[in-house]
C-alpha cells in the first residue's frame, strides 16, 4: 500500500513538478538564521486568510440589498449554527489586522528596514495597509445597521468634501448622490471582489520582491539557515496561535448588530477606534477650514509615510531617523489626543441619551426579527411593531371617545382602563352614570345598584361579570362560589332590563338598550361591540357609538380586540361609593 501511494505520488510529480516547485519556494536563504521577529508577517497573512475564509462562508448567507442586508445578517448571526462565531471571528480579526499592520509598519520604520534598496517593499507594505483600511470602510456598512450606516455616511461625506474630484468620486462610490441600493451593492463588490483581488496582487508582488531581495542579514550575523523548516515552523506556530486566539475571541465577543439603518433617524454616528482621530479632526476644522482636517493633514501624513525611505535616505543614523520619524510620532500623539477629545464629547449627556435610544431600538429590532423580517425590509418591521401597533390603532379608532391612561383623556364614553375586570364591573354597578362611565352618553338611566344589592351582592355580580370574559372558564383567580352567587343575583334581579338567559324583558326588541351580559368582556363580546354596537343584544337603538364594520381590516380588528381585552389587567376607574342622592 505505501509503495502504491509512493508510486502514485511519483507519477503525479513527474507530470506536474509541484513538489519541486514547493521545495524551491520554501528553500530561501535566511542570513542570520530564523527569528521570532519575522513571524509578525506570518501573523498578518494568517489574519488575511481568516478574513477570506470567514468572509466567503458568510457570503453563502448574506444578501446585499437595502431590504435584505440587515435581515440576512440577523439570520446569519442569530439563527444559523456557528454563524455567530464566524461573524465574530471576521469582526475581531479585522480589528486585529488593523492593529498588527500598524505594528508591522511601525516596527519596520523603527528598524530602518525601509531604506534603499527596500523602498519598493516599504511602498507595497503601506499599500497593503491602505487596502486593509479600505476593507474596513467598505465592510462596516454591509450589515446595513445604524452604526455601520451612519459611520459610513460620515466617511463618504469626507470623500465628497475633497476639492474638484470630490463630488464625482462620491457619486461613483455611492452610485448616486445619496445612499441607496447601489451604494450597498458597490460596497459589497469592493469588499468581496475588487479589494481582495487588489490585495492578492499586492501581496503576490511583495512576495516576489521579497524573494528577489532575500532576507536582510542583521549586522554581524554569521549563522546562515534556510526558511524551511527553521523559520517555517515558527511561522506556522504563530499563525496557529493567532487563529486559535482569534476564533476564541470572536466566539466570545461576537460582532455587534445594531438596529436596521434608518436614514430618517437621529443616530449618534461614531466611528471605529482607528477612525476616531480622523473623525475628531472634522470637529476641529469646521467651515471653510474643513479641508485641512479631511484632506490636507491625512494627505500629508500618508505622503510622509510613503516617502519615508527617501526622507530618511540611506543612513540609519539616530539623528536622521529621529528627523524622519518625528512628524509621525507627533501625529501619533495628536491622534491619541483627538481620540480622547472624541470620547469626552461622547460622554456628554445628549450623546449618551441618544445612545440609549439607539440601544432600545437595537433590542427591539433583534426581538422583532425573530418573528421574521417582511419582504419590504426591516424598517417596515420596525414601523409595524406589534407592540406599538395596538396603542396606535386604539388612539386612531377608540381614543376619540374612550379614555385610557396614557393614550386618551376623552370623556364621551366609558373609560376602558380595567374594562372586563371585577374592579370595572363593581364601579359600573355602583355608579353607572359616573362621568368616567356612561354618564356622558345618551344611555344614562341605569340606576346605581349598591342600595338594592348591598355591598356583597355587588361584589358577587362583579365577580361573575369578571369571570365572563376570561379565556379559561376554570381560571383559578376567580372565586367560584362568588361567581355562582353573582350569576344567581344577575338572573333574578337584573334581567328585567338586561337580555340573556332568564330575561323577563317586555320591551320590544328595537327599543332595548341594556346589553346581554352573558359573555361580557370576552373577546367575542368586544369584537361584536366594535363591529355592531347597535345590535339588539348590545346597546340597541339609543347607541351612539359608530359601527366599525367594514372600516377595520381583519388583522387590525383582531389586534384591537386583543388590546382592549388586555385592558382588564389595568386599574379600573376609582368609583367606590354610590352617587349622592339628588335630594340629599
Amino acid at each position, binding site marked *: 500500500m505505501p509503495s502504491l501511494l509512493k508510486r502514485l505520488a511519483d507519477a503525479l510529480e513527474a507530470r506536474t513538478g509541484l513538489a519541486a516547485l514547493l521545495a524551491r519556494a520554501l528553500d530561501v536563504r535566511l542570513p542570520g538564521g530564523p527569528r521570532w521577529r519575522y513571524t509578525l508577517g506570518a501573523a498578518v497573512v494568517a489574519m488575511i486568510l481568516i478574513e477570506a475564509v470567514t468572509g466567503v462562508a458568510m457570503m*453563502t448567507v448574506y444578501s446585499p440589498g437595502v431590504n435584505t442586508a440587515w435581515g440576512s445578517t440577523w*439570520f446569519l448571526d442569530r439563527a444559523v449554527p456557528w*454563524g455567530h462565531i464566524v461573524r465574530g471571528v471576521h469582526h475581531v480579526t479585522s480589528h486585529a489586522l488593523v492593529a498588527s499592520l500598524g505594528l508591522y509598519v511601525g516596527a519596520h520604520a523603527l528598524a530602518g528596514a525601509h531604506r534603499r534598496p527596500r523602498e519598493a517593499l516599504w511602498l507595497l507594505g503601506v499599500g497593503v495597509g491602505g487596502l486593509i483600511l479600505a476593507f474596513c470602510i467598505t465592510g462596516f456598512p454591509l450589515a446595513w445597521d445604524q452604526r455601520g450606516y451612519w459611520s459610513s455616511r460620515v466617511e463618504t461625506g469626507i470623500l465628497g468634501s475633497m476639492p474638484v474630484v470630490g463630488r464625482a468620486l462620491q457619486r461613483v462610490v455611492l452610485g448616486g448622490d445619496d445612499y441607496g441600493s447601489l451604494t450597498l451593492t458597490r460596497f459589497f463588490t469592493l469588499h468581496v471582489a475588487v479589494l481582495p483581488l487588489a490585495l492578492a496582487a499586492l501581496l503576490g508582488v511583495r512576495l516576489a520582491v521579497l524573494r528577489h531581495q532575500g532576507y536582510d542579514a542583521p549586522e554581524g550575523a554569521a549563522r546562515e539557515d534556510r526558511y524551511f523548516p527553521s523559520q517555517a515552523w515558527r511561522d*506556522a506556530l504563530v499563525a496557529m496561535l493567532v487563529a486559535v486566539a482569534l476564533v476564541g475571541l470572536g466566539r466570545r465577543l461576537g460582532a455587534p448588530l445594531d438596529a436596521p439603518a434608518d436614514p430618517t433617524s437621529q443616530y449618534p454616528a461614531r466611528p471605529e477606534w482607528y477612525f476616531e482621530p480622523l473623525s475628531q479632526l472634522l470637529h476641529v476644522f469646521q467651515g471653510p477650514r474643513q479641508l485641512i482636517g479631511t484632506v490636507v493633514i491625512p494627505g500629508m501624513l500618508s505622503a510622509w509615510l510613503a516617502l519615508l525611505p527617501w526622507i530618511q535616505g540611506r543612513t540609519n543614523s539616530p539623528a536622521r531617523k529621529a528627523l524622519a520619524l518625528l512628524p509621525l510620532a507627533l501625529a501619533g500623539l495628536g491622534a491619541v489626543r483627538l481620540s480622547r477629545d472624541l470620547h469626552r464629547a461622547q460622554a456628554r449627556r445628549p450623546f449618551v441619551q441618544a445612545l440609549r435610544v439607539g440601544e432600545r431600538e437595537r433590542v427591539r429590532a433583534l426581538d422583532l426579527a*425573530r418573528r421574521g423580517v417582511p419582504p419590504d425590509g426591516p424598517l417596515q418591521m420596525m414601523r409595524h411593531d406589534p407592540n406599538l401597533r395596538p396603542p396606535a390603532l386604539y388612539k386612531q379608532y377608540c381614543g376619540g371617545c374612550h379614555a385610557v391612561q396614557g393614550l386618551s383623556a376623552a370623556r364621551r364614553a366609558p373609560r376602558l382602563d380595567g374594562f372586563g375586570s371585577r374592579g370595572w364591573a363593581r364601579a359600573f354597578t355602583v355608579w353607572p352614570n359616573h362621568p368616567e362611565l356612561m354618564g356622558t352618553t345618551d344611555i344614562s338611566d341605569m340606576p346605581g345598584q349598591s342600595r338594592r344589592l348591598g355591598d356583597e351582592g355587588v361584589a358577587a355580580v362583579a365577580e361573575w361579570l369578571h369571570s365572563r370574559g376570561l379565556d379559561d372558564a376554570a381560571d383559578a383567580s376567580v372565586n367560584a362560589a362568588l361567581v355562582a352567587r353573582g350569576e344567581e343575583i344577575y338572573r333574578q334581579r337584573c334581567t328585567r332590563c338586561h337580555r340573556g338567559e332568564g330575561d323577563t324583558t317586555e320591551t320590544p326588541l328595537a327599543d332595548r338598550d341594556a346589553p346581554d351580559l352573558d359573555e361580557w368582556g370576552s373577546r367575542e363580546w368586544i369584537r361584536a361591540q366594535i363591529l355592531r354596537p347597535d345590535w339588539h343584544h348590545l346597546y340597541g337603538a339609543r347607541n351612539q357609538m359608530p359601527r366599525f364594520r367594514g372600516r377595520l381590516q381583519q388583522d387590525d380588528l383582531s389586534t384591537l380586540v386583543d388590546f382592549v381585552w388586555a385592558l382588564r389587567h389595568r386599574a379600573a376607574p376609582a368609583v367606590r361609593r354610590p352617587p349622592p342622592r339628588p335630594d340629599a
Partner: protein
Amino acid sequence: MDEGRRRALTVIACGAGAAGAGAVAVPAAGMVIGAAEAGGPGRAATGDGWTALGRLDELPDGTPVQRPIVGSEGDAWTVAPQRRLGAVFVLREGASVRGWSSICPHVGCLVEWSDARYVCRCHDSAFARDGAVTSGISPRGLDPLETRVVDGVVSIRFVRYRLGVAQREAIG
C-alpha cells in the same frame, strides 16, 4: 541540520498549520452546512396550518374543486404575509370531505381535474379520483391532506411533501 531534527520541525510546521486552518475551517464549514438547519422564522410560518375553504353545502357533490392556499410564507429571515403557498383539491361526497394537495408528487407542477381524473400536464401523469396513480411517472399518488368540518365550514391542513420519492415525507 540533522535529519531527525528536520523531520521533527517539519511535523511541527505542518501540524501547526493544519491546526490553525482547522480552527477556522470548522466554524466556517459548520456555518455553511448548518444554514439549512437554521432556526429563526424558518421556511414555514403558516400558523396552525388550517385553511378554511368555505361551507360544506356550497361544495359540489362528487366533483373535486381546486382551491388556492394562501398564508404567510417564511424563507430564511423573511416572512411574507398573504403569499400563495399552493393549491388543494377538495372532494365532497355527501357529508364526507376528502382533500389532496394539487402539487404533483413528481416534480411539483400543478395538477388539474379534467375528464374525471387528475392530470399533470408537465409529464402526463394521471391520477384516479382517490389520488392513486393510474398512468405516468409520478412516484406516488396525490398527497392526501387532513380535512375537518366545523359548524358546516370545511377546512384543510396544507402540508408540503418532498418531491420525486415514493415515500411521503413532510417538509417545512
